[in-house]
């Protein structure tokens, strides 16, 4: 049984940095559980004697020279244009550390 508990859904959402509403948790719990139950068909196969595949055409360790690209793809100014908030040529973000850390 793979039914995801409410707590598990909350935890995955938090790990994924996804805010979810209390009222949606049951829905996600049911939908994700259904999908997990579906994919668990793979358990029918028992022990599998095969190497896991992560690259399907068999490429291995594709590397490039550890050097700067000669061509700049975008300038700093161009990149900053898309930032929601900027200050003094930098991206501005909300506070990372709170003054009163909750314990």
């Amino acid at each position, binding site marked *: 049984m793979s039914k995801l508990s409410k707590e*598990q859904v909350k935890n995955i959402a938090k790990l994924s940095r996804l805010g979810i509403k209390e009222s949606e948790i049951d829905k996600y719990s049911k*939908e994700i559980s259904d*999908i997990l139950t579906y994919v668990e068909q793979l358990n029918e196969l028992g022990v599998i004697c095969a190497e896991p595949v992560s690259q399907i055409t068999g*490429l291995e360790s594709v590397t*490039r020279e550890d050097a700067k690209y000669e061509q700049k793809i975008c300038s700093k100014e161009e990149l900053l244009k898309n930032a929601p908030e900027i200050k003094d040529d930098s991206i501005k*973000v909300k506070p*990372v550390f709170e003054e009163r850390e909750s314990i």
Partner: protein
Amino acid sequence: MLSKLSLSQAIEKLESKEISSEELTRFSLSVIENKDKDINAFITVLTDEAIDAAKIVDGKRLKGEKLSHLAGIPVGVKDNFSTKNVLTTAGSKILSNYIPCFDSAIVKKLKNQHAIIIGKTNMDEFAMGSSTESSFFGPTKNPRDLERVPGGSSGGSAAAVASDEVIYSLGSDTGGSIRQPASFCGVVGLKPTYGRVSRWGLLAMGSSLDQIGPFTKTVKDSAIVLENIAGADKMDSTSVDREVPEYSKMLGKSVKGIKIGIPKEYFEGLDKNIKESVMEAAEILAKEGAQIIDVSLPYTKYALPVYYIIMPAEVSSNLSRYDGIKYGFCSKDAENLMETYLKSREEGFGAEVKRRIMIGAYVLSSGYYDAYYLRAQKVRALVKKDYDDVFSKVDVLLTPTSPVLPFKIGEKMTDPLSMYLADIYTVPVNIAGVPAISVPGGEVDNLPVGIQFIGPQWSEEKILNVAYIFENNRR
């Protein structure tokens, strides 16, 4: 009439100077103007840019410059291809204001060949879906029946070609997102071998599965587009350095003696009308001398479960970059950094994207990794081996593209699993990294049915040729 032009016909007319690129581009824009309020195939239309680009090509042609076949011909590009200074949304609210400062490799390639990029086509949010209903910009309608979906996720690209808004378009295919909408809209859709076309600058969904390919009106047109976009790219380490054949010149060879496999797993429980269309396709090819052979790919049923582990795992990782900080939508209500992440992603992503991110995070989390992700990667090897084995016996496989006909808008949106099952015949192809093409194969209840040809890795010329022979021998 300009509207019925195939790509090959347009090339001829442009090269003989019977028409100009400006005429062709203005015509395409006028069709979009007339039809797209109903169809909604485009998120962005580049009217002025397209006409300017067309004028430049016309000038070059008059001067007698040697030009690519794609020069001067309008193309629609799926909205997950990065386009410099042009809105690139991937159908999502979280990128609804995002304007890249660079072109994806393929857009650059098109521009270098003076193709006319006429607009960005609608899609399921981040290419997650089989109906184009999950787009933040509203659903695309099937030009054949406006109450039905065009398929997805590249539904806009398929509908744009089917409604003659453009002569061809580009999409991306992670589990069927080119072939299934091509099938639903009655056009040709090709997913090349994994690594055949550079994906640099394509907004990633499932990086071990994603591949770019064309939507066209004919098989030959797909061959023309592929030979002009394929090839290795040092910016995409998964692209493979192999010679790109002139696919369009390899069409028309007799299929006499070619072995075409009919895999029984692709017909189990299949709608009998769709099955009939596929068997008719087999008969047509048999008449041309092909040998039709019953084959089996026993691990087929496990391909979809494998997909719904591997793809969400990759999605959860690929979509972590959308955080409301560097670009895209940022929630106004956040008071600290954590809230910026949580709220921007909560408000910016739709339900299907959130589901897949959470499934991915779950199957990758410690304690579950071996049971889900690692297991799926092992079964992936078995699915691939099925294809290796079968292709030692036959040259290509013939299957339906989709188990269902184009369904009504809204019909499957409330049941994610039933939507997933719409990809049951296309997903195994991405799991194995092999190429496949969907070609129109008749109609059932006035709705198009797609026939899928699947070949071994790097055998595009083979599936294109068989599809071409089939296309030319249908009544």
